[in-house]
């Protein structure tokens, strides 16, 4: 009979509360160049990258749910009324976890430097998807001006990638050195993952 993973549950609960509370309470204080580091996205990506699909998806769905509750996107519906959406946070975080858990598997070795590459790549996908959606929405539904691509790259995409990479540094240390798994266990688990086909694992 397997023991209940208290350490894992407690560590993830504390991290989720901290990450979510800091994100929604102190976004203004963290703002640099008009951009806010997306701690929720970065934490989901790193959890999926270091601790696999299952952990990443669970963390992502919880953070996505909180994101939908506290700062859901608001769009103008087809009837012209404003609608506070539900579920977009869940979808974004789930996809981020799924993509991150599949990064640098197979021939590549998952290590700490590659985690920053993963964060940058997922951030880029997230921002580009958001940009394309906003272009579609603004031009098709609201018939208003479309954001400028160069402006988006210089003033939104690149600063966001930079900030998310910076925000990833403390989170990488948290996930690797403090919890949710003991470092020895992580290595053991990594071997299981390789056998079960999820790809190579963290190499320190």
């Amino acid at each position: 009979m397997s023991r209940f993973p208290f350490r894992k549950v407690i560590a993830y609960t504390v991290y989720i509360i901290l990450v979510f509370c800091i994100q929604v309470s102190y976004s203004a204080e963290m703002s640099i160049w008009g951009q806010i580091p997306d701690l929720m996205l970065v934490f989901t990506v790193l959890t999926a990258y270091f601790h696999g699909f299952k952990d990443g998806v669970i963390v992502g769905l919880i953070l996505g749910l909180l994101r939908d509750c506290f700062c859901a996107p608001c769009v103008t519906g087809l009837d012209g009324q404003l609608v506070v959406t539900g579920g977009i946070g869940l979808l974004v975080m789930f996809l981020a976890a799924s993509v991150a858990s599949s990064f640098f598997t197979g021939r590549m070795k998952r290590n700490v430097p590659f985690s920053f590459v993963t964060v940058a790549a997922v951030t880029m996908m997230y921002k580009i998807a958001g940009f394309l959606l906003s272009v579609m929405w603004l031009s098709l539904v609201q018939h208003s001006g479309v954001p400028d691509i160069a402006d988006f790259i210089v003033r939104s995409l690149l600063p966001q990638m930079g900030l998310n990479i910076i925000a990833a540094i403390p989170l990488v240390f948290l996930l690797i050195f403090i919890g949710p798994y003991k470092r020895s266990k992580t290595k053991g688990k990594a071997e299981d993952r390789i056998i079960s086909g999820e790809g190579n694992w963290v190499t320190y």
Partner: protein
Amino acid sequence: MRKLLTSKWFIILVTVLILIVIIGVGFIPGSPVRQVLKPVSGLASPVQGFVKNVGDMIGDARSALFDGMAIREENEKLKEQIAQLQYALTQSEEAAIRYEELKEALHIKDTFSSYDVYGAAILSRDADEWFSVIRADAGSRDGVKLGSGQAYAVVDVDMSLVGRVIEADESNSKILTLMHESFRVSCKVNEVNGAYVTCCGDANLKKDGLCRLTDIDPDVVLEEGDVIVTSGEGGLFPEGIPVGTVVSVDYSDPLNVTATLKPYIDVSQLKDVFIMIPVADDSASTDATEQTSAEGGVQ
């Protein structure tokens, strides 16, 4: 078959489809999706409030330690300001007496007399460009009850327009700021017979904390520094709430004159807001009460 069901990519595909359906259902008016999220919000709010309070306490303690000199200088300036304000107050008292006399004589209505104003603290801010709704700690139990198609104006401590309440649950309300792409409000230039314009959020200008002015009559001359206030048209917002000042005007396309507006508010600095709720028409309610009592008497 079992291999397919346990496949990672199959799980991802199914989950994505389910989430897309949830998002789609969320767009239907009166959808249950928002109702399902409310208990989660109710559970998470106290935790978030606690962490925010701890963070604020740490911030205050740090301020108390390091801001002593700055506070002393600020105190000196404030003392000078108090002296000036005392003088202005004395003059204003006389003007107020004169205004009350004229108000009765000319039947002038107070701009916001038909609104109840509820104070609320900002609980959470926008997470990023997509997730850009802010939350305040006033909900239906505080009197912020939204009906279908309703919205309440939100102002800051200087009575400048912040945005509108778009959703309220029991203890919290969600506010759409005027920089959001979906925000639109009818405005006018703050002068006698000032031109009417529409103020709306713009994806390109949002990052700079600016808004777009559209629907400008090509014959109207807008100038940099013109003050824009709400026009009261449409009935959602009361007339005369300051919105911001004109930064630049683009007359290059005579059929589509636009301008850039610098709002008075700075969303990142907001701590408290005020929600303006129209007071129910007293005369109508009095009539209804009289009618009800009359009907009661007949019975």
